[in-house]
């Protein structure tokens, strides 16, 4: 093939480095994260200290861990509104099975995983089997699990919380894996931050380097065409829902292991923040486009803002307004950059 025909076809046209960077879905979030970091770091010495960083990375990591699989699911063209409440289900399951039913801690951990994967499977199975929007299916799951969490917890404990996981044998080993801290520069960084970075890398690798990653983009982009060329869209969708549930298991257990207690209402409402982080990170609501690193950057923006406002001693009553404006700006900037890049390409 000669150079002349190659340039004639826009699909293989040479694209400059700058444009290629601009076209990355996570580019906008990266710029946003840098701007927000510079802003808060220049205003507050606590924010730029190691202890301050440990704080905002902690908030970011909890959100980011969930935002990554949620982003993958969104690229695959679906939502999971039950993602937040699932973290509660996972933590409560581990807590109740160990502290009330006397199950060995790791066995309970495993049963909790099996339970969560089942929930993810049901979500995915119902979505693919019925063809109904995942919004409706997972809304049902969201409400159902909310009732289940509360009902079972109250039935078993007589209160709305499970306590004393820290008295269960084997707790400290699990605590080291999920809830311990690493001291860097005199500040204690939560180990969840490392898990977050690790899961982000794995998810990115899956997304851009594997056949399954390709299938995610295909399923979210154009499901019918994908099916026609042999992509197993149903299997992809179900796997994605199960990945979200897997992470809910991880995050929910992190929560109960860290503090030894968990409440029946944990996670309710958080699913929206996962979606927000994924959207700031460049995911399209229509599917087929987005990135895992972007979702983590979105979570980072959120965490930095939430803690930065407190570090600056601003009145916290206005916090949500500030976050809302910040998010809108981030999304608008994202869109502007993307449009600019796509025009430049033509």
């Amino acid at each position, binding site marked *: 093939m000669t150079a002349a025909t190659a340039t004639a076809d826009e699909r293989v046209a040479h694209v400059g480095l700058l444009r290629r960077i601009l076209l990355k879905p996570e580019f906008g979030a990266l710029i946003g994260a840098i701007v927000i970091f510079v802003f808060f770091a220049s205003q*507050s010495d606590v924010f730029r200290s190691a202890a*301050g960083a440990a704080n905002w990375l*902690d908030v970011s990591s909890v959100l980011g861990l969930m935002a990554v699989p949620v982003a993958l699911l969104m690229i695959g063209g679906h939502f999971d509104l039950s993602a937040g409440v699932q973290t509660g289900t996972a933590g409560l399951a581990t807590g109740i099975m160990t502290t009330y039913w006397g199950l060995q801690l790791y066995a309970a951990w495993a049963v909790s995983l099996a339970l969560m994967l089942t929930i993810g499977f049901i979500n995915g199975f119902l979505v693919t089997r019925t063809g109904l929007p995942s919004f409706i299916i997972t809304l049902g799951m969201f409400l159902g699990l909310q009732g289940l969490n509360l009902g079972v917890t109250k039935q078993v404990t007589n209160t709305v919380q499970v306590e004393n996981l820290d008295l269960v044998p084997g707790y400290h080993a699990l605590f080291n894996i999920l809830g311990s801290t690493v001291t860097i520069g005199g500040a204690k960084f939560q180990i969840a931050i490392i898990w977050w970075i690790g899961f982000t890398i794995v998810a990115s690798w899956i997304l851009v380097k594997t056949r399954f990653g390709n299938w995610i983009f295909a399923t979210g982009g154009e499901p019918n065409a994908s099916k026609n060329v042999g992509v197993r869209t149903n299997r992809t969708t179900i796997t994605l829902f199960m990945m979200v549930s897997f992470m809910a298991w991880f995050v929910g257990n992190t929560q109960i292991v860290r503090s030894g207690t968990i409440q029946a209402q944990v996670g309710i409402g958080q699913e929206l923040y996962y979606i927000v982080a994924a959207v700031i990170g460049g995911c399209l609501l229509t599917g087929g486009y987005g990135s895992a690193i972007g979702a983590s950057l979105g979570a980072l923006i959120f965490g930095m803002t939430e803690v930065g406002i407190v570090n600056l001693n601003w009145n916290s009553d206005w916090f*949500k307004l500030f976050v809302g404006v910040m998010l809108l700006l981030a999304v608008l900037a994202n869109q502007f950059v993307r449009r600019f890049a796509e025009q430049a390409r033509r």
Partner: protein
Amino acid sequence: MIGKRRAWVVVAVAVPMLVVSACSSRNAVNKPHNKSGGGSGGYGYKIAVVTHGGAGDSFWSIVKRGVDQAGKDMGDTVTYQSNGDPQQQSQLIDAAVNANPDGLVVSMANPEALRTSIQNAVKKGIPVITINSGEAQSKEYGALSHIGSDETVAGQAVGTELKKDGVKNAICVIQEAGNVGLEQRCAGVKATLGGSVTNLQVDNNNLQAAQSIIAAKLQSDKSIDGVVTLGAQVAAVAETAIASAGSSAKLVTFDLNATVAKDIESGKMLFAVDQQPYLQGYLAVVMLTQYKANLNVLGGGQPVLTGPNLITKENAAAVLPLAAGGTR
């Protein structure tokens, strides 16, 4: 193919169940509590309780325990319903009144929205007792009595105690935006502390983030020497936050649970303010029963205060098992 898939579903559902049912409760650190109540009084009245408490709220689950136990003790049939939305709560009241109960118990977080519904009940001759909040309007709407704890008075008690401990700059952690009672508590603390009290907003459904936010606040203002939390669940994360921020701020909380009782016992928290929610539920049912049976009104219709009751190092140990049992 489909058969194979079904099999997987069955396995996925059955395996956790089998494992759970096969385990014994020998190793359990939390034992299920005795749920059976005392003897039955056999009055047999029908009493409806409609509150504004959220379903997952630990405070209201204790109120409900009190209501249920009083129903058993008095031999009454009690129904308990709740909705945090004032409009929907008033609809629940209307529905309860339509069923012609012998008595009605209502919490009034937003009295204005419930006025018509409650006055309709009074007009129908149903005795009403208000609990928890709405003391100022209770008489005006025609209720027999009010059982609760004044949030402002409770806040002032905390402020006075903190002042004794030398606290000058405190933060007041609000876990539910827009809850009037919580704002009143903080205002009460401010009124008697004499120093500065700053409100800090966190989310009750994301306590890990709440922990980081409290720590961030403590780091950015090193002069903070007191932390007031308004719920037992937030108190636990505030304690971790104080430790992680390297702060020496003193911690006190409203409301109680087992963890809080334990931490007070070990000195990690100064004290907790308990408004004894169990009594609010229990007494309301008992009072209505005695009114129906004997026309008694406790205190002649004056508000009955269930708090503030301070849980300190001295009495924490005794309260601990009760808190774990969900009645304190």
